[in-house]
């Protein structure tokens, strides 16, 4: 777990979330550029998984392995699941769902940094 990388991914996710909420205010359904932004954040999260696994193979240990893995893969799932739920109905509410899904990413990454740093829960 590299704290600087987690901060960068969190900033990207927060940026996409703000973008989504601006579109909500403008009364827009999800549009392709926003979905591509979410795809970009998802790619960064996939890299996060690879980096974390490599560091664990290299001897790094979080405060609680099960908690860390739950956050690691939870963060990987939240955007795809949120997107599926959002796109079942294309309204401004779908855009809001995408924004909320993006907002959970910085929260999950913050908890991952804490658990990697030795927190047990």
């Amino acid at each position, binding site marked *: 777990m590299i704290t600087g990388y987690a901060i960068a991914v969190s900033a990207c996710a927060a940026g996409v979330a703000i973008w989504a909420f601006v579109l909500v205010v403008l009364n827009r359904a999800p549009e392709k550029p926003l979905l591509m932004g979410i795809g970009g954040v998802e790619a960064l999260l996939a890299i996060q998984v690879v980096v974390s696994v490599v560091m664990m193979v290299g001897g790094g240990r979080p405060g*609680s392995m099960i908690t860390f893995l739950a956050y690691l893969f939870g963060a990987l799932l939240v955007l795809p699941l949120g997107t599926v739920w959002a796109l079942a109905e294309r309204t401004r509410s779908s855009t*809001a769902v995408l924004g909320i899904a993006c907002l959970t990413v910085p929260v999950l990454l913050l908890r991952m940094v804490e658990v990697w740093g030795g927190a047990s829960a």
Partner: protein
Amino acid sequence: MAPVPDERAGQPARERPATASGPGRVLIAVYAIFAVAATSRAAVQIATRFDEAPIPYVLSAFAAVVYLLATFALARTGRAWWQVALVACSVELAGVLVVGTLSVFDRAAFPDAAVWSNYGMGYLFIPLVLPVIGLLWLRRTRPA
């Protein structure tokens, strides 16, 4: 891209929106996040260190069940599921108020924060606001 019309515009005036349509989808998304968070947290707490703080951990598990039920019921259609959602949101509101009050006055019993401790302060008070919004949404979507 053109702005989308209001979600309820296409429906007949007398018909109530389904709980899982329009703004309801946002509500269910937030409920789902809390359901997953509370369930996984309670599972880890109970599996790894139940002896440390049994009361908050049991309450965490109870909260998890309530969130799961509310998420599922809101996402379904029909009068029965609407009633299940009403019960779940009501229990949730009562739970966060009772547990929140207990945790403020008896800190010793709540050494480790559960989702409803201190009225959900550790979760930005979302656990306190969520059932209120849920109940307001259920009033809007009450079956005729």
